[in-house]
């Protein structure tokens, strides 16, 4: 007889083994899916490699795709560590992008660095506002944060759809009208590129800075302690005398602000005009990135870079192996499930029971 038994001590080798198996099973499942769809598996994976890390250009492209994912992943980490299941990153990305775009119109003509700072700041504020809204709904009216964030996501998506698809920000010309996008932003509003790469931009630096800030905040500050304590035992935290409502509000503001930056990075660093289509799914993918990153900032950066590589590679995969680009979200979902199971399994050990004890 074999039985699962909960581990009391932490065994790092076992944990590593579990997560390694999760990776392998994730890839095997992907291969199975490709096989079922009649694609050449080796060709598909080769294309994935080719498009993500075969040259300097593709590496920059991967990192540029990773930038918003790292940010939304970090937003997830901050909330989920406190067991606050906010899935409002998607909407916060939208509101961040929109308020940054508003700032770019309002402050046009200011010196470049002040102008950029204001745009980035407004982006963070936009995301933070939406996060705060969910926190207030929870604190004042006891509205479940999952529900309120999902509903706000949809509301923000429709809001942006109106603003650039018939509303005041709709771009001039047929192209802008068909694709529901704004006028291109001014050159001074674009986030500067790093290393002359034409791909990687200031947003990546922001993402790394945010990751470090999150790492310090969660692990080394009293507020981070409250976040972690809230996740472990919010009742005990309350009896300690902490105002948990305040903690919730602050952490949602912080999480929202980071997600808002993802919107800024995508619009002002990569796409250069406000458009809903480019923002779709950044928040949801960020949840997977944060989860697979083990809800740690460092892990999130690693997972974000891997997922950025997948996103960048999927373009090649579409061309070389004729695999639909939607394979990538599927892979992400598969990996999430295998990692979730690995996360649980790493707390157990297999015990052989002797007969009639």
């Amino acid at each position, binding site marked *: 007889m074999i039985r699962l038994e909960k581990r009391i001590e932490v065994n790092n080798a076992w944990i590593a083994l579990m997560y390694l198996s999760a990776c392998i099973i994730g890839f095997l499942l992907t291969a199975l899916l490709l096989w079922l769809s009649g694609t050449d598996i080796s060709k598909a994976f080769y294309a994935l490699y080719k498009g993500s890390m075969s040259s300097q250009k593709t590496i920059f492209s991967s990192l540029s795709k990773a930038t918003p994912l790292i940010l939304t992943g970090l937003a997830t980490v901050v909330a989920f560590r406190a067991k606050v299941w906010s899935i409002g990153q998607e909407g916060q990305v939208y509101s961040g992008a929109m308020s940054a775009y508003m700032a770019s119109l309002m402050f046009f003509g200011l010196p470049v660095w002040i102008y950029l700072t204001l745009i980035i700041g407004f982006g963070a504020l936009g995301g933070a506002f939406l996060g705060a809204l969910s926190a207030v709904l929870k604190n004042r009216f006891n509205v479940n944060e999952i529900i309120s964030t999902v*509903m706000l996501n949809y*509301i923000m998506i*429709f809001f942006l759809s109106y603003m650039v698809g018939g509303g005041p920000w709709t771009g001039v010309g047929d192209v802008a009208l068909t694709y529901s996008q704004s006028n291109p932003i001014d050159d001074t509003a674009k986030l500067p590129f790093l290393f002359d790469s034409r791909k990687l931009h200031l947003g990546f630096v922001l993402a790394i800075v945010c990751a470090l800030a999150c790492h310090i905040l969660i692990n080394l500050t009293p507020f981070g302690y409250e976040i972690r304590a809230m996740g472990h035992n919010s009742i005990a935290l309350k009896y300690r005398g902490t105002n948990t409502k305040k903690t919730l509000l602050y952490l949602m503001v912080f999480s929202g602000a980071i997600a808002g930056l993802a919107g800024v990075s995508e619009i002002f660093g990569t796409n250069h005009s406000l458009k809903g289509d480019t923002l779709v799914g950044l928040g949801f993918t960020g949840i997977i990135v944060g989860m697979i990153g083990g809800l740690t900032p460092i892990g999130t950066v690693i997972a974000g870079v891997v997922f950025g590589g997948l996103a960048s590679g999927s373009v090649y995969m579409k061309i070389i192996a004729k695999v639909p680009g939607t394979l990538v979200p599927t892979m992400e979902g598969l990996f999430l*499930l295998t990692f*979730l*199971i690995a996360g649980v399994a790493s707390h157990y050990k297999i015990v052989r029971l002797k007969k009639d004890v």
Partner: protein
Amino acid sequence: MSELFQEAVIISILAGTFRVMTPILFAAIGELVTQRAGIWNMGVEGTMIMGAFTSYIVAVETGSQHLAILSGILSGMVMGLITAFMIATMRVDHFITGLGLNLLVGGLSLFWFRLYVGGGYAPTFDSLDNFAIPILNTIPILGDIFFNQKLLTYVAFLSVPIVWYFLYRTRWGLELRCLGENPKALDIKGLNVVLRQYVAILIGSSFTGLGGAFLMLAFSDRFQPDLTAGKGWLAIVAIIAGKWLPKGVFIAVLVFAFLGSVAVHVQILDVNIPYQIFLALPYLASIILLICMRKKINQPAKLGVPYFR
């Protein structure tokens, strides 16, 4: 705006309300059973997409609407099995499981859809026909609103009293409700907790799969990405707003569906207000509903809490 208040339009909006209501009602009434058993299945949206997508493929391939509906239910049950394995057997957090499955299905259905369609146009199928109830459908106005709907719409309405009866008048219903309040009591009595969790999840997800199939077969003739557009989430909101009671859930779904139906008609009628405002209405309404329902009277005590012996 005045276009909205003509008799024909009002009848159409009300008839549309019951049509829009059907898939959400299926999902909500099924998930009510799951939630009363203490399991917070957040994967309703994903299960619905899966049901819709499977029934699309089967409808196109076989041309049989019955098989398509059946496959929708079956794919819902497959999703339910995965959910139950994660929640009841592995005891992964309920919220995380549901979210993960939603994300997975969002990707998976799109991937298969693109593969299926290839470079061409999506193949179409014949939508469900209306099933007019004889005699009753000749009543002026009311006949058009109530008695000229799809057959499954009547089934959805019937399922509300059936689920009520199951939950409150049968032994299994009692045990499932007990599971949501005090699973330990069942365990001590020697009743299998995990088995009952599986059953509760499967009931919910098969209803949700059916809702997805209806959404696919009744409203359009081909699959499109983001077909469900949050209807699964609205089902969850309806359960909370309906205070975990079949009657309350029914009323909440009715409100959402009415707003949804108004939104559809506003788009068609070209009213001089941005249609996005109306599209956002059900979601706004759900937040307002939840604000009004701040006291969660009947929420099962152990809802969303993994059970460890």
